[in-house]
């Protein structure tokens, strides 16, 4: 039964030209993002290595000094990056990745990319993390709402319910299909990480798995958030039968409210 629904959703997906084009566009953006991010990472690493060598030379050639003076002379430290930064550069672009270490002073990191960027660039650059975090949810919402809005508009939701399947089973079928569409985005990233894992000994496999699980959880969160609206559609056609998902939607609503309230409170406190 799950396979039947899976095949049907893929067939409909393939025949809906708009979704295929959207997927191809985002998939291409993902590949470009990996390529661009990988190039930037390599350039940054090269520059960092050259600068580190020069900095080391400067430190070693500072001449004879007592240790205290040497401490005041200071030294630049560079934050190490792992190849995972190609996928998700993290907060380095905003917090800086070079620290000037000197005696008696607590300097903040410098050379954050955002310092030299216009505001639009601060929203995100073309890297896999930005695509996964910003564009993937839009794709999930678009597909997910299409799943049920189309079923309801066409009247086929009644046909589904008349198959004798429970709303829970229908929900899981839709969620599985939506998950499979969404995971297409993770394919290039997974391929890149697999390649890195075999070719780069520095890559921390636990960190890689952790990051993979976090993104997987992120996708699941958006799928659940989107499909929690199913309660609305199914409650109309199938009254009083969807309390389980009402609860899950209520939990998500509550979580969003909690986060929103705290973020707003904190930002207001900051002002």
């Amino acid at each position, binding site marked *: *039964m799950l396979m*039947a*629904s899976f*095949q*049907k959703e893929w*067939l*409909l997906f393939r*025949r*809906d030209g708009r979704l295929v084009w959207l997927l191809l566009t985002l998939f291409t953006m993902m590949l470009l993002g990996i390529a661009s991010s990988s190039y930037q990472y390599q350039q940054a690493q090269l520059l960092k290595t050259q600068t580190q060598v020069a900095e080391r030379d400067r430190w070693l050639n500072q001449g004879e000094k007592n240790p205290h003076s040497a401490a005041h002379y200071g030294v630049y430290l560079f934050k190490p990056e792992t190849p995972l930064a190609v996928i998700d550069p993290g907060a380095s672009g905003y917090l800086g990745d070079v620290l000037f270490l000197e005696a008696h002073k607590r300097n903040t990191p410098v050379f954050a990319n955002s310092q030299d960027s216009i505001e639009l660039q601060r929203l995100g650059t073309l890297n896999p993390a930005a695509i996964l975090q910003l564009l993937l949810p839009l794709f999930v919402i678009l597909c997910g709402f299409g799943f049920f809005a189309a079923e309801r508009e*066409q*009247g*086929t939701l*009644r*046909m*589904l*319910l*008349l*198959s*004798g*399947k*429970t709303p829970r089973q229908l929900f899981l079928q839709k969620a599985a299909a939506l998950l499979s569409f969404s995971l297409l985005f993770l394919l290039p990233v997974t391929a890149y990480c697999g390649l890195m894992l075999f070719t780069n000994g520095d890559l921390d496999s636990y960190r890689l798995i952790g990051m993979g699980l976090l993104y997987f959880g992120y996708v699941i969160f958006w799928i659940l958030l989107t499909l929690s609206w199913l309660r609305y559609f199914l409650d109309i*056609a*199938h*009254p*009083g*039968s969807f309390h389980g998902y009402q609860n899950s939607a209520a939990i998500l609503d509550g979580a969003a409210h909690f986060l929103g309230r705290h973020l707003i409170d904190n930002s207001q406190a900051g002002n």
Partner: protein
Amino acid sequence: MNSLGTMKNLDRPVISVTRVSKRFGAVTAVDQIDLTVNAGEIHALLGPNGAGKSTTLNCVLGFLHPDAGRIEVAGFDTVTHKPDARAQLAYIPEQVALYPQLTGYENLDYLSRLAGHVRSAGELTGILERVQLQPGAIHRRVNTYSKGMRQKVGIAVALAKNAKALILDEPTSGLDPSASYEFSQLIKELAAQGSAILMATHDLFRAQEDAHRISIYNSGKIVRSIGSELINEIDLEQTYLQQCREAEVC
């Protein structure tokens, strides 16, 4: 032969509606309705718009919960055993709901598998041929189908899922006489093979031709029930209009 072909238990109700009421706010759409449909029987519901026919059908399908009374389909309560009851039902509304981007064959394959009946390509094609869908249309997308063709696929779905009962809501509305006749023949064939058929219609001629029992609704009540022994004896149009006039609706 399809399991619809079984002629057993013809006298046992497949659909049983007992003292069912349904209210929407202050309006009582269905008021203490009793009706049964046995295997092999076609039961037609007649009545003016808003009389409660479709509400009754929606209660039988489990899309509405009755406020009072009980509905059973093949022994399953439509409220407490909804999925089991629905598994015994097929529904053909005025406009049969199918996936427009899929072909008739793909729609049938999916809906049949969803209902737990995995059928071979030959079986599916055989079912579509049996409902007289043109061979050239079987692998064409449904968005190119006429209304009559969609209804044939709807009947094919009922056959493929071995539905014990068919619920039809205005099935011949908007069909040309030839398509209406073809549809009527298919329905009679299904009934002859043991399906219980509950049909709401405004087509008095088809009701008189096809039905074994006719119930005339008015203001949420069955005001007249006509058994098979009387159907061909009475002037149905006059009887219907008289019932409407008596209730001052028409």
